[in-house]
């Protein structure tokens, strides 16, 4: 990484993208101290996450504030029962048993894991495993949630449901989410902000719709947004709130209705 500047507020859902090897995973691991402690290396500059500098605090001190969900659910589920998995992080925090019990029960309900409470992760589907991984981390009530390619092993339908869950949590609990994802069509509709990294540097940071338009040669294109661009070139500019086909479609419907209304008025009032 080189010369990285970033500020993240509560409630943001940041989509962090960039080609393989651009440094996004490295960056993510600074946020909870895995860099520099687990991985070594040299970290210079000003870093403050939840008021702490990762160079001065070991990773376990970040666990309360930064939740990290990794790509492969297999490697972050350690126990043979869902319930035990949820309790693990809380035990590490040293919380009293009643509090652990309360939070575990709440998580089982909120993340729809109640019927699965005794199951081993081996018996869960990929989507359920990832939901469990997120729940195990969220149960610790972090202020920051980092997800490193959380949907890589999931089909698009399940992937979108997982990301919708994350989005809901950023709104409900004012958690700041940083999501690393390659598939724009899956993740972009949920993002409030998009950051692009190339070669260890941040090359763009801003509203998803705008950033995608500027960075298509790096991050690929979204067909729905391509359509908006072509329409704009033909003289029809659309206002698109979110970079999803649904939003673009609705903008087109709106534009169509407006133009029909105008046409009808023109016809009924020639003078």
């Amino acid at each position, binding site marked *: 990484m080189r010369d990285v500047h970033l500020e993240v507020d509560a409630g943001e859902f940041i989509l962090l993208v960039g080609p*393989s090897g651009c440094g996004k995973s490295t960056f993510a691991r600074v946020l909870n101290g895995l860099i520099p402690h687990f991985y070594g290396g040299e970290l210079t500059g000003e870093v403050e996450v939840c008021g702490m500098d990762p160079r001065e605090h070991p990773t376990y001190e970040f666990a309360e504030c930064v939740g990290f969900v990794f790509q492969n659910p297999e490697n972050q589920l350690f126990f043979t029962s869902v319930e035990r998995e949820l309790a693990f992080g809380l035990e590490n925090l040293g919380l009293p048993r009643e509090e652990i019990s309360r939070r575990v029960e709440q998580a089982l309900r909120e993340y729809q894991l109640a019927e699965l409470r005794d199951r081993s992760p081996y018996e869960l589907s990929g989507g359920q495993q990832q939901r469990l991984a997120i729940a195990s981390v969220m149960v610790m009530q972090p202020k920051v949630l980092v997800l490193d390619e959380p949907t890589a092993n999931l089909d698009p339908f399940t992937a*979108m449901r997982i990301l919708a869950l994350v989005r809901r949590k950023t709104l409900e609990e004012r958690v700041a989410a940083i999501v690393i994802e*390659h598939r724009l069509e899956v993740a972009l509709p949920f993002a409030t902000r998009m950051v692009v990294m190339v070669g260890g540097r941040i090359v763009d940071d801003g509203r998803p719709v705008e950033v995608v338009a500027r960075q298509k040669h790096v*991050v690929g294109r979204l067909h*729905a947004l391509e359509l908006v661009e072509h*329409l704009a070139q033909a003289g*029809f500019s659309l206002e698109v709130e979110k970079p999803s*086909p649904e939003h673009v479609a609705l903008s*087109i419907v709106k534009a169509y209705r407006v133009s029909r209304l105008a*046409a009808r008025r023109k016809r009924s009032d020639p003078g």
Partner: protein
Amino acid sequence: MQREESVVIQVRDLYYTYPGGVEALRGVNLEVYQGEVLAIMGENGAGKTTLIKHFNGILRPTRGQVLVKGIDTRQASVAELSKIVGFVFQNPDHQLFADTVYEEVAFALRNFGYPEHVIENRVRWALNLMDLWKYRSKSPFSLSEGEKKRLTIASVLAYDPEIIVLDEPTAGQDYLQKEKISETINLLRLMNKTVVMVTHDVEFVTEHVDRVAVMTKGRILAVGPPQRVLCDTQLLRESRLVPPQLIKLSLILRRHNILNEQEYEWRADKLALKLVKILESDTNGGPSGI
């Protein structure tokens, strides 16, 4: 299709149950034609990977039959079938083991008994094709993820199988890596190979694929050209497939009576032209375009 329509893989009434008791395939029938690019899609757990593992004998039918170029997969070993069907696995890390990239690619050729001078030519050709020749003396473990993926493809291409099966070739790949894989698929098509791929990437499919087979719960729901299959809302809903962006968009426009089915377009520029016409005809106060 302009290509010769001889069947290279025949799946007849295939049932498969895993040792743990899970019935993954329930009566699958499929024909794969020579030279085509076929995509198998469906949600996780639908049976896609289970199905393709029958194509080179990794799995053998519990009931039913799978014929590869006329050979019953029960009668041949995986190594033997792999000569005809090259399998590119999703995770390169499951198979890398050699000291050098060169040796990694030569492995299959040695197993199949090719003479050394042929091996040298083939390895060079395959590595050059995948732009990896410069790494030939390096350890395969030192390559980046994208390079490892290309290495596994090179390892399969080197022994020139007729049929190539890819398990989620674009999973976890960034934009540029996906472009490279696109090029590779086009190349395979030019080489008249038969390509079968399991994928979730609908956008990729619309650009490269002749036919799509949609699976759900161990069965094939439909097989056909992507233009037909991926516009069928009922089918998409039943198989929990996310349609391509522009189709999703067109379906919404259709619900609002702005487009009709004949006007569905896959490409943004073509769709834009259609929409411009529709929007313009209204602004001019003329008859609506529908």
